[in-house]
């Protein structure tokens, strides 16, 4: 059993989606085709399930729910807090802890350091950005085990976990290998900001934008984003900072870096057979092209070649069914 709790990226491939989730499986696939991916391993969904049963959490939660039967939103919120507490109070089973810490030591060794900084992210068959706890800069064995319990306490869903080394990124962002709004697959779009990729993915700061011709990798258009905030490491986590003025007025990528990212995007699209949405980073202390690494890839969601008018109608319909509303009632 324990052989399936933790797996190195290179042990994984497309076929392992059920075991470790789509995100990890894709990372394995990227390693296989020789792309630069930071070293790391995954904790499988089995590990989560076994943690829950070995510690007796499953039974305890069952009992709790049978007793309290939450009726309204308020009671549900309370139940969620209580259940989380049940999980948080559990120690990591010894066998499981051993597997985790030995993998961590090995990862540190591979990165030629005593205690490597890792990021942990949850990953399921479908990704739900922002719904689960993510820890971006975890250092040390005990800290790591602790964070794992916290992530598991935040999810009542079977999720796997990814651990990989995180280095200081100079810039980071995403590339769409086809225009996500129009579906135009002759162009690729890169968005990037200084620091870690979280500012781009989270949509907090307006990034730099590059539009590339897919065939020739020629830069068709580039637009300097104001990039007012960026995300960087601090001790035991990450922090959002103001971009210093000498940097906000400059592009976060050189043209050849943008083209290299485009080239990697094309490789991924060809391998997976559909347009990809890829997270990339440029590491601070390596030289081109080794400084460009890939963090994740997934099939891109495309608005099916829609005209601007169609997209306006889509937005309108979305307002009726979703949150946000129309003009906030101020019309």
């Amino acid at each position, binding site marked *: 059993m324990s052989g399936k709790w933790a797996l190195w990226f290179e042990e994984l491939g497309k076929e392992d989606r059920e075991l470790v989730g789509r995100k990890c499986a894709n990372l394995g696939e990227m390693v296989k085709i020789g792309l630069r991916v930071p070293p790391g391993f995954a904790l499988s969904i089995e590990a989560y399930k076994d943690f829950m049963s070995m510690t007796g959490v499953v039974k305890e939660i069952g009992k709790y729910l049978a007793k309290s039967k939450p009726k309204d939103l308020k009671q549900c919120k309370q139940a969620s807090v209580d259940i989380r507490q049940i999980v948080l109070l559990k120690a990591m089973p010894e066998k499981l802890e051993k597997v985790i810490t030995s993998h961590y030591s090995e990862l540190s060794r591979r990165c030629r350091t005593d205690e490597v900084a890792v990021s942990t992210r949850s990953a399921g068959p479908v990704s739900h950005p922002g719904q689960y706890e993510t820890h971006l800069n975890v250092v040390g064995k005990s800290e790591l085990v602790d964070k794992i319990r916290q992530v598991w306490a935040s999810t009542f869903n079977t999720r796997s976990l990814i651990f990989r080394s995180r280095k200081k990124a100079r810039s980071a962002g995403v590339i769409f290998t086809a225009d996500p*709004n129009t579906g135009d697959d002759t162009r690729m779009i890169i968005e990037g900001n200084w620091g870690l990729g979280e500012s781009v993915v989270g949509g907090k700061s307006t990034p730099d934008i590059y539009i590339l011709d897919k065939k020739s990798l020629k830069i068709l258009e580039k637009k300097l984003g104001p990039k007012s905030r960026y995300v960087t490491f601090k001790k035991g986590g990450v922090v959002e900072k103001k971009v210093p003025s000498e940097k906000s007025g400059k592009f976060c990528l050189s043209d050849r870096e943008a083209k290299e990212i485009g080239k990697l995007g094309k490789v991924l699209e060809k391998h997976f057979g559909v347009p990809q949405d890829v997270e990339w980073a440029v590491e601070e202390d390596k030289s081109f092209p080794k400084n460009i690494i890939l963090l994740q890839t997934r099939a891109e969601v495309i608005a099916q070649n829609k005209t601007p008018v169609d997209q*306006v*109608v889509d937005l*309108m319909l979305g307002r009726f069914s979703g949150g946000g*509303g*129309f*003009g906030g009632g*101020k*019309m």
Partner: protein
Amino acid sequence: MAAVYGVTRFEFDEENDLKSYTVFLADVVHGRPPWRPLFLIDSWGKWVYRAVQRAAEQLSLPTTRGWDARYIKGYPYLAVIETTEQEAKKRAPLFRKRIRPYIEDFNAIWEERKADIMNTYKELKQRYGLKKYEGIKKLSNVELMDLFDDYMQVNRKQWDIHMEFMVPAYYLFGLFEQMCTELLGFGYTDPLFARLMAGFDSMVFQFNKEIWRLGNRAVELGFDKLFRTTEDAEELLAKLEESKAGREWLEEYHDFLEVHGWRNERMLDWATPSWIEKPSLGIPLIKVAISSGGTYTIEERREEAVRERKEAEKEVSDKVPAEQRGWFEALMKAAQKAGYWSEDHNYYLDLYCNGLGRWITREIGRRFAEAGVIDDPEDVYFLIADEIEKALIPMGKNKLHKQVEVRKKEWKGYLKVAPKSYYGNIDLVQEVLRKDPVISVATSVPVVREDLKADLYGAASSPGVVEGVARVIMSEDKLAELKPGEIMVAPGTSAPWTPAFEIVKGVVTDGGGALSHAVILAREYGIPSVTGCLEATKKIKTGDKVKVDGDLGVVYILR
């Protein structure tokens, strides 16, 4: 359950109605002060709600099937006819098809319908050989009855067209405002938003230009002092009659009125005189034009506004990520056109059509009084359409004094009532507004933010902060009382109030949302305004020092 004016179409059955609908909101924007029976029952009640429901079906709006209405203590209340989630899903595909043309080219559809309705008015007059305003007196009673009935159908058409545009206009404008907030972090109170919406020429400005021209002409003919010093407008007109130059000016003024005078003192009401009928109504505006120095600044400002708008468009577009720019620009263009329509339509729809309504009903009232059917011509507004038909032919046979007496008493009672702003579950009002954003055209739901400790909270505003002395103006015939630099406080404003925006420093109103006349005009003139405050005219007294904060949408009374 009480029938209003003896008519049971709109009676409120609190228990059952609140089972069918979430919340009823008072239509404070249009329905205050309470209308007399003829307009409330046979114009507003008969055509407006029908037109909203018709537009909801024709556009296949997913989450609303229009509005239902109840009359409570003389005031109209609106409820959104909400759809279920399943209905909404079913209605969405057709909605997709029907809303498209408005996004693609709002203006082209409007220009076509505008020409159609103006032609309909023209045809109605031609059918009865009516060339001049006074011509109506020559019609036989039979012709007048036919004209009254034909007019009702024209009125119907006008409201149908009105809602065909109002609904998409609100959806587009609201969505754009929301996207600016969510995507770019600036809302409708931002000066940038104001710049995006400014610089469009509409009939309001054309009309205004005419007012300015007449003002300049009066000065040219040497009547500067007369206009400035004669307080009473009727007296002023009489004095002008005395000289050749004065008669020359009056002739020009009457030519203007034959074309543009189809507007009533209260825009949506037949019981107040129209300009063409009572030329003194236009004089306060001409006085405002003269006292502001005779330069029509908005015209000069337009070129600059257009340039500023284009710059703002570019500034905003540049902030939008390249891959989203396509739809954003399409939406921006449509929202701008929707805003323009909102300003332009009053002239062709509400004002003109109700000007005609006043013309015809007033003539009926005049004949009724002459034939002893009623005592006073204005009493005709206390009748309903069926009774008018009954008494028109043969005229004089049926007397209607009793009906007038009973209804007048009822109406006078309503005048004393301060309407409750809602019935039902107000906690769900935001949910209802989300399903039908258009309803905010008639109702005000101010956003109260306790932390600001303001005296009044608005439903919408135009940006800027200003302090000044307030002047409460309850109706447009009082506009001449305004002094330059004051802050105008009014129940609401409509097209005829436009010249006031030339001289005031800020505007506060009881009713009106983000597409209301007051907000659009304030934006155009670059002055702060807060609208939809519900009780501005009650809480603020003329002479009070007030601070209008259009950025936050609140008003402070400093005293």
